[in-house]
């Protein structure tokens, strides 16, 4: 069975031709190039994901770009939370998945003995790799897109008060009400951090929920002016909210990055790494939020959404 699959993969590889020669220079345009003599063996890949829509879309992005380049991909999505998916990756039940730098680092190195997540993605990625090394895992390039605490305002508020980034709040915050989970005022990544890092003090705080329906409704109903949501929350696009840029880096770097088993990378000629990195290079916050909105709000199929995005970005044909 195993042999059969490898043979099949080899045949496919010969037919479509590898990017090792074809695509090394011009990234991405490998699909239907003319056949050359050198046969390349593409390893089989099992892509995993945790159990929420964003993870499934990311899994689709990774799967489809690999399939378009001759890899045989098995999807194991919706496996559960990180407590289930991370051990599955370590033990080889899946080969790669989409992760969040700071959260994964804190998950694997709970006491921060080896490395602690910081607000700098590069630094956090380096720290994460140190923790991943003994587990024979590699974190590839991270995207600009994150899924972390974010402060949002309505379009009206943003326009009338001219708000783009968190620092813009400093002069106007004393007339505004912040809404978020009840613990927000005492948490370093919420109101306390806004005060300490930015010097932002609000007129009042309204205890609501953790980036849930209460916060969204309160924002819409103008019961609060600024709300705490997750940066990739689909309602940001759906409700036309403006996500204020964390310009002084209050939040830990929870940028999205693929984590891959070294065993898979060794079987591969570097194409897989290049393909996944090409996704990270294009995955901005706005692009991710738009896909999340299509899947979570418009109920579009994540397969279709992922394919459309890859085509739009010129990553597949």
């Amino acid at each position, binding site marked *: 069975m195993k042999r059969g699959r490898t043979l099949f993969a080899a045949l496919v590889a010969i037919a479509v031709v590898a990017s090792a020669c074809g695509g090394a220079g011009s990234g991405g345009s490998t699909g239907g190039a003319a056949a050359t003599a050198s046969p390349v063996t593409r390893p089989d890949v099992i892509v995993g994901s945790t159990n929420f829509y964003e993870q499934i879309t990311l899994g689709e992005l990774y799967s489809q770009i690999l399939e378009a380049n001759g890899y045989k991909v098995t999807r194991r999505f919706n496996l559960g939370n990180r407590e289930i998916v991370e051990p599955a990756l370590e033990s080889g039940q899946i080969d790669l998945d989409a992760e969040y730098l700071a959260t994964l680092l804190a998950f694997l190195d709970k006491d921060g003995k080896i490395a602690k997540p910081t607000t700098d993605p590069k630094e956090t990625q380096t720290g994460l790799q140190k923790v991943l090394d003994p587990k024979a895992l590699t974190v590839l390039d991270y995207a600009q897109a994150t899924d972390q605490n974010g402060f949002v305002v309505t379009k009206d508020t943003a326009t009338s008060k001219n708000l783009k980034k968190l620092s813009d709040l400093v002069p106007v915050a004393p007339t505004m009400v912040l*809404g978020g*989970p*009840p*613990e927000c005022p*005492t948490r370093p990544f919420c109101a306390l951090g806004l005060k300490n890092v930015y010097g932002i003090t609000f007129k*009042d705080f*309204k*205890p*609501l*929920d953790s980036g849930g329906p*209460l916060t969204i*409704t*309160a924002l819409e*109903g103008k*019961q609060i002016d600024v709300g705490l949501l997750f940066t990739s929350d689909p309602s940001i696009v759906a409700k036309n909210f403006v996500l204020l840029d964390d310009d002084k880096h209050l939040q830990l770097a929870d940028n999205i990055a693929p984590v891959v088993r070294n065993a898979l990378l060794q079987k591969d000629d570097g194409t897989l790494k290049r393909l996944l990195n090409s996704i990270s290079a294009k995955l901005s916050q706005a692009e991710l939020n738009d896909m999340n909105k299509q899947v979570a709000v418009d109920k579009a199929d994540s397969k279709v959404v992922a394919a459309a995005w890859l085509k739009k970005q010129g990553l597949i044909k």
Partner: protein
Amino acid sequence: MKALGDLVHWLTDPANWQGSHGIPVRLLEHIELSAISVIVALLIALPIALYLGHTGRWGFIAINVANVGRALPSLALLAFGLVIAISLGLGLGFWPTVFMLVPLAIPPIVTNAYVAIREVDRDIVDAARGMGLSEGQILRSIELPLGLPIILSGIRTAAVNVVATATLGALVAGGALGRFIVDGLALQEYDQLMAGALLVALLAVATEVSFAALERATVPAGMRVVR
């Protein structure tokens, strides 16, 4: 013992008695929320119950419908209230909680008021009718005064239920004393949580006691038990 010390410390901390999140503000919010809910329930329940009690018709249905109201879980009513309030543009917090509390307050008011009027001695009512009093006069000057203590005891039950349950309003971003319980849980500040619970319990007891006093005061002079 340490928990008790924490509780006393929290309750005596001046910081917790000030500002828009302090105990006085939350207490007033709680009283306002409860009072409005009970008043709305009275406006709905009393006319129906008095009419039914006076005519003696449909009583079976009234009491059973009211009793079904008792069986509805408050949390479900709160969720329902939230949906209604948002669709009416009334926002979070206050109105969703009122929508939950009104159906909770109606059953005891209806049941007691109906029974209070029904239980007035029929001989007295017949005598009044024989003397030429109109139906409205009978209700106003015979049935209502005689039934008042029982009607009030229904309102008392409703008010105590409402005061205790108004705590849930904090789940939909409301104010009131429930805030201390919900926030205390979220922050794992158990002194705040316990203080909130204690304040709600005290307010419920105070409600009970004041209504009991009111009931005693409204018993017609001739019916009072001399001690």
